[in-house]
């Protein structure tokens, strides 16, 4: 069998091809999300809004965080939960750079939750894309901040006793300029929201609801990637200009996606430039 050739797929020029295929399990939603983000980035680069050589991808630890080392950009695969403070240092030391932080809900909202709060509060100039797959996947299926109540995981064998975190409501309550939610079953919205975020300043946050058929799917009896994809798709509903109160994320009642917050508050860099 022949080796995988050079640039073929339209996104190949954005990937470290020698690391493709990814380590993601078959049917993992992360690749869909990454593809959508790269299409948006490609557009912004061709428009001249973003300089390809001034983009830095930062990931903490976890399946999602690995996106950072699959892209052929300046990138960093750092510590669990610490992508946002790392990116903060990068951005402040060289404000020319465009910072893209990628991470799962455990990485960004769990162990890194305090950093997320403070980056949003500061309106720090970076984009954070958090993939919510309801579980700690890389470590083998433990409960996550977003795991629904009652779900059995490897560390909650009698059912998760904690109600899940609705991260959109948390971030929107702070000073972030952009707060949106999409789903891997709606890659065009991921692309659209990320495209918009790339043209803004301040803290931009996108939650992408994702599928983890291998680990979370096993917990809820949807191990087949297609089945899980379709079950998620059924629950996801786009709403134009939704309010924060409408940011429902509930496996039973539905998942509302859309742009919950779009504003132009002064970003951290703008404020410190004004103070000098």
């Amino acid at each position, binding site marked *: 069998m022949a080796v*995988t050739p050079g640039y*073929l797929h339209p996104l190949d020029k954005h990937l470290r091809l020698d690391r493709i*295929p990814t380590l993601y399990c078959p049917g993992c939603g992360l690749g869909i999300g990454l593809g959508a983000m790269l299409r948006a980035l490609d557009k912004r680069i061709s428009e001249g809004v973003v300089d390809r050589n001034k983009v830095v991808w930062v990931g903490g630890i976890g399946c999602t965080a690995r996106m950072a080392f699959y892209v052929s950009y300046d990138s960093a695969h750092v510590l669990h939960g610490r992508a946002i403070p790392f990116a903060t240092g990068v951005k402040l030391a060289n404000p020319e750079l465009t910072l893209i932080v990628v991470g799962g809900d455990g990485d960004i909202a769990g162990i890194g939750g305090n950093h997320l709060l403070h980056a949003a509060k500061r309106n720090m100039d970076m984009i954070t894309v958090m993939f919510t797959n309801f579980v700690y996947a890389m470590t083998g299926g433990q409960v996550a901040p977003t795991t629904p109540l009652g779900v059995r995981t490897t560390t909650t064998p009698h059912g998760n006793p904690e109600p899940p975190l609705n991260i959109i409501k948390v971030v929107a309550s702070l000073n972030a300029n952009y707060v949106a939610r999409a789903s891997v079953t709606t890659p065009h919205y991921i692309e659209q929201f990320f495209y918009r975020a790339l043209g803004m300043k301040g803290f931009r946050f996108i939650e992408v609801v994702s599928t983890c058929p291998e680990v979370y799917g096993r917990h809820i009896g949807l191990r087949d990637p297609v089945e899980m994809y379709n079950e998620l798709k059924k629950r996801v509903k786009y709403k134009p200009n939704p309010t924060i109160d409408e940011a429902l994320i509930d496996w039973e009642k539905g998942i509302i996606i859309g742009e919950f917050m779009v504003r132009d508050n002064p970003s951290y860099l703008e404020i410190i430039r004004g103070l000098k």
Partner: protein
Amino acid sequence: MGTTYSSLGLITRENQRYRVTVIVDRCKECGICISVCPTKVLVKSSVLNKYGYRPPEPAHIEKCIGCRLCEYNCPDFAIFVEVASK
């Protein structure tokens, strides 16, 4: 009848307007592309790639409407759609 593919490891089929290409060794056989295709262009092929997965084959390429849902929903950058050159 077995699926055929090029020495570059690509399965390529085209109709008058669109060409669909599958990069055989990137596919993990998740089946999402087959599921999302609104006109049922794709079927599982008979090829086993180097990881033991069976990639899709655009067996009914004549039905392709160029919506790219397969490309956008493929988690592994393994399938893409182009406008066929005249």
